[in-house]
């Protein structure tokens, strides 16, 4: 990707991020933080690619790559499960919620 395309992608993604959560009620702040924490767990993909390109002869690269993938997987799995558990509590009374929250 050349420099300017990258810059445009950056800019558009930043605006998207800002817009996506601009109207979130306070009660969802914590689950949403947790949810976005899960989304950046996609770093796992990057870590997998980095490990995939690491030199198999170099134990240092392999070790770092291994831990990067491990941490990335933990970020994704842990982020998912805590978010899902928190949001699971919003099942009951969803209807009431609509009118109750600003």
């Amino acid at each position, binding site marked *: *990707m050349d420099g300017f395309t*990258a810059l445009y*992608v950056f800019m558009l*993604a*930043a*605006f*998207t*991020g*800002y817009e*996506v959560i601009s*109207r979130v009620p*306070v*009660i*969802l*702040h*914590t*689950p*949403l*933080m947790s*949810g*976005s924490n*899960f989304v*950046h767990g*996609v*770093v*796992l*993909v*990057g870590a997998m*690619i*980095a490990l*995939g*390109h690491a030199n*198999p002869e170099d134990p*240092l690269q*392999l070790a770092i790559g*291994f831990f*990067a993938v*491990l*941490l*990335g*997987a*933990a970020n*994704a*799995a*842990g*982020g*998912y*499960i805590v*978010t*899902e*558990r*928190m*949001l699971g509590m919003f*099942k009951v*009374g969803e209807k*009431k*919620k609509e009118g*109750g*929250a*600003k």
Partner: protein
Amino acid sequence: MTSNWFVSMAYFVVAVVFIIGLKAMSSPVTARRGIVWAGFAMIAATVVTFFIPGLQNIGLMVLAIVIGGSAAWWSGKIVKMTDMPQMVAIYNGMGGGAAAGIAAIELIRGVEHSAMVSTLMVLGAIIGSVAFSGSCVAFAKLQGLMNKAIRLPQQNTINFFLTLFTFGLGLTIGYSDDPSLFGVFLFFVLALALGVVLVLPIGGADMPVVISLLNAFTGLAVGFKGFVLGIPALIVAGIVVGASGMLLTQLMAKAMNRPIRNIIFTPLTGAAAEGAEGPQGTMREVSAMDAASLMRFGGKVIIVPGYGMAVAGAQHKVWEMSKLLEEAGVEVKFAIHPVAGRMPGHMNVLLAEAGVPYDKIFDLDEINDEFAQADVALVIGANDVVNPVARTDKTSPIYGMPILNADMARDVIVIKRGRGAGYSGIENALFFKENCNMLYGSAQEAVAEITTQIKALG
């Protein structure tokens, strides 16, 4: 890097689903659907990655995913709702660590990049490392492993030069074709140290904002790694999280009336609080029986739950007591401060867990005017968020923070473990007011006792 059309297409879909998922998560009705969609997208992204041609070390990769994924899944499954904030912190730190690890491999391999990509890589490495070590400190603080805010002399100067030096060293090794291993090592040690010294001086009360900020940091680091590895899906997901995380951080900081700059550079410390003149007077104690009758024969009770209630696991008991009061014809409402608990919205989750319906829970703006008409404000394990000095005392570190006007109620009952100051270390003027009654004890036992007494009153 991925010439494979199928993989690129899959990543594109994944990025779109992540955004839709996040959007869905910002409304209570669709929130659960949002995380499930995002979850499927994550699985798809992981599976598809194995199809990228030319990847080596597949066995090691699978092993790492299985260990990391299952350990985190298990820990996330068993953690108590009250401990959620530190879990979010630690998972976030892991993401930052992964981003830093990617940078480390790229640096050691000495892959040639353009100047812009090298700069982004160095930035991503620093931000990722800071998120990693900073989150570990935040976790330790919230978990109670580390209680004191440690402030180095000349903190801001140290931070400034450490940042400058780390970045300079990073650029040097980032631009060199064959960086020395020692240089790379030193760079990461410095970057990790930076995260520690940034978070160490920040008090526990400000931790939610810090976690949110570190979350945004990790997002940015992941986005920068996307530029380095040439994966647009990583860029989009990372930057979207980075931007929304920044906004979320601002919203939280606003709720606490503590500009982000102040939190990072001039943290609240016990020392600052001690400097201020403490409120004078005596605290009045009240028995559970008197507390019960005050509420039972009042027309309107507003409950202000705080983290103390959550820690004691008293939310179920509180809800049981409220139902009893309602049966007796008393109007009961819950007032939630934006930063009650350890993160905005944390208390809502905890009350929801106990089964309190949403229409009984009100936030600060909705309910603050009602305290004046309430007969009893029952404050359970909350402290700083009902401290009236935030309205009156300009010298107080929390001056200007929006608070719940519990002191305006006819009677205030405060359930509190002991006589100590609040999380921020500031004495609470409310406890010395004439309409305030203190009920010492753990929230769980105190509320159970009140419930028994209400039953006895019939």
